[in-house]
């Protein structure tokens, strides 16, 4: 209980921050990012998203729905606590099936984390079969993770900031068939290591494909330190959950999140 209270407290503070800071940034959506913001983003493209689009895509960046934000903040707080407990800084967002809100959860969790001033967040779209994070921000990337893996396109060409401070996105841009092999390749391991160690106090969030529909997530699982299971209320079956958890036996599942809770 104590922890929840603390979390709530923190969330409230965070909200204050959210309400003051992003609104100002909204106003300067078209303005070029100022040099004061962060040295880390000097070579990262800033692609601000239209607020209407974010709202439509249910991204909490400029959302005013308090309960939703609180829910994400609670999730963020607990996840961060668990990661810092073990000194981890990478997290895979997984789900049993498609359409359970995995990608949205990853985005919103990343935004929520990025709002903490001492954290920077890198969101990596590893759903190589159906990459979708960039679309959520209304951005069509020229290159994606696959290009880095196959064509050695430098990462800086593809990283972008969706107009939210301390959040960088590594998008995917096209679907590939041998995604599982790519994900389990040595290069991918190197990429992950690099992403994790490039900056201290950075959290890397991987959006993985559904666990039960393809071998991708399972192949990639050993590369991450922790995983968060997204469960859709009234949609994910009990057997799917137990199957998924059984597959992820060797991975540290920090917890579950119940998504789309009906009123």
């Amino acid at each position, binding site marked *: 209980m104590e922890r929840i209270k603390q979390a709530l407290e923190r969330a409230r503070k965070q909200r204050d921050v959210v309400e003051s800071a992003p609104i100002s940034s909204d106003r300067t959506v078209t303005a070029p990012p100022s040099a004061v913001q962060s040295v880390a983003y000097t070579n990262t493209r800033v692609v601000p998203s239209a607020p209407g689009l974010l*709202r*439509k*895509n*249910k991204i909490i960046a400029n959302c005013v*729905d308090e*309960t*939703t934000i609180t*829910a*994400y903040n*609670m*999730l963020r707080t*607990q*996840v961060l606590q668990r990661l810092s407990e073990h000194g981890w800084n990478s997290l895979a967002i997984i789900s049993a099936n498609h359409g359970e*809100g995995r990608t949205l*959860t990853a985005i*919103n969790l990343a935004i929520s984390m990025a709002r903490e001033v001492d954290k920077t967040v890198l969101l990596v779209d590893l759903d190589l079969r159906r990459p979708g994070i960039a679309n959520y921000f209304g951005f069509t990337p020229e290159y994606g993770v696959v290009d880095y893996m196959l064509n050695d396109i430098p990462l800086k060409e593809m990283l972008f900031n969706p107009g939210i401070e301390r959040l960088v996105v590594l998008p995917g841009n096209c679907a590939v068939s041998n995604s599982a092999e790519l994900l389990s390749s040595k290069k991918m391991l190197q990429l992950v290591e690099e992403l994790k160690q490039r900056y201290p106090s950075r959290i890397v969030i991987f959006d993985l494909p559904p666990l039960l529909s393809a071998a991708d997530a399972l192949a990639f699982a050993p590369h991450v330190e922790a995983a*968060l299971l997204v*469960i859709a*209320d*009234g*949609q*994910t*079956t*009990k*057997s799917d*959950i*137990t199957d998924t*958890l059984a597959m992820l036996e060797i991975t540290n599942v*920090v*917890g*579950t*999140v*119940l*998504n*789309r*809770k*009906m*009123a």
Partner: protein
Amino acid sequence: MEQQKNNLVDYLITARRTKGMWVTALVVIFVIGVGVAFGLPPVYRSSATILIEQQEIPQELVRSTVTTYADQRIQVISQRVMTRANLVKIIKKYDLYIEEQEKDPLEVVLEEMRKDIEMKMVSAEVVDPRSGRPTMATIAFTLTYFSESPTLAQKVANELASLYLNENIMSRREQATEATGFLTDEADKLRDKIADLERLLAVFKEKNVNQLPELTQLNMQLLDRSDTQLLEVERQLRSIDERKIYLNSQLAQLSPNNTQYTETGERILSSMDRLKSLQAKYVSISAIYSQDHPDLIKLNKQIAALEQEVGEADDSRQLRVKKTHLETELALAVKTYGEEHPNVKKLNNSLAKINEVQKNVPDTIDESVSKQSKPDNPAYIRMLGDLEAADAEYRSLLQKQEELLAMKQDYEARLTNAPQVEREYRSLSRDYESAVMKYREINAKQMQAQLAEVLELERKGERFTLIEPPQLPEEPVRPNRLAVVFLGGVFSLVGGAGSIVVSHSMDQTIRGATGIQSLLGSAPLSVIPNMRNDEERGRTRRRLWWVLLSLCVLVCAAIAIFHWLVMPIDVLWYAGLRRLGI
């Protein structure tokens, strides 16, 4: 409480998720209910009330031979009325169950008809006059027939009522007639038996006419009298005996013949006397002279003549004479020659022979004397007459005694046999009497039964009266369409709720934080509410409008199709109102 609320919320969530399903179930069931309510054919009922009337003449005066209880009899009549033949007749007469007859065997149709016939007893609490306790008595019964047509309901109910009435009369008559017939038969049998017994009794009496128990006294008297008579006869016999002895002695003293005298007063000897004297003379002379002596020859001749006269030429006399001769000779020879002389022996032998012969020839000297001699002594004759009279009397008395003895034996035999005869007689007469008694009894009963039969024949006994003939029903009794509609509504609700419950229980998806808690043992880190953007909200609203609109269109189309293809709406409306009974 919390748990229940959660359950309810869960159900509501499921309901929202599966609204298509349960709404369909609800609507379909309700539509079916309404269809059934208005589709069920109307059923009319028509009832006849039949009163069970007590017999008019008091039971004490005429007792009916039909003694079963009214309700029992009604049941029996029911069984008789509900026979296949009766029902088939009614079905044929009114063309009932035409559709059923086409698809079902006759047995099923009959069963259907039996179901449509209802018989109900009407009971009332009455005080039993005998025990004084209140009991339930059947005073009437109702006969009901259910039909889809009001007129048929009335007609068939009428038919059934008349069947019941007729069957009752018939069965009562039958019963009464049967009782009378039985009693008549019994009486006839008894009469025959009595006649048999009477004949037997008569034969018996005839056979034992003198030994009948009622004659015992008389027989005793008769025996007594015969005893007395016997004594009397014995006494008489004794006195006659005495008299005979006396008479004999008297007679012995009298000579049968009168002593005849010549003119000289010399007595004339009778031939017998002369014979005797001659024989004596012969004996004395033969001792002196030889046989050839002329005197002897003369004597012999005289004797022979006399003997002829007397008529005593029979053997015994000759034998006697010969014997006298031989004895005389023997005495002489013994004196002359001694015992051992051959002559003596020879004479002894001859004498023995004669003795032997004489033994065989009866000595009839006395009778021959009395017979042969013609007595002429009046005293002797009178005496003889007396004696003969006494003899005759004696003989008659003897005969009488014999008769009396025989009679006495007869009487004694009668008295000895009497107990045996009595026993047989008693048993016979007992049988007879009991038969007669029974006959009287049966006869009385028969009379009663005949009276009861008349009672039944003239319908004065307990009877069924149709007090309320079946009426033409105006309103159907079934189905209660409002109730069926209501029931359809209830069922549709239940069906809808059931479908929700079923889909909830079949639901394998995870529900809420508690679901995760219970599945994994730990709560989710966070619960993110379902976010809806403006577009989604708008879509939902639009969909709702579309659904409503299409529903309206559908309903209108359905009504229109019904109106033009099946029947005009206003007609349906009034028909519906009528069926609802408004």
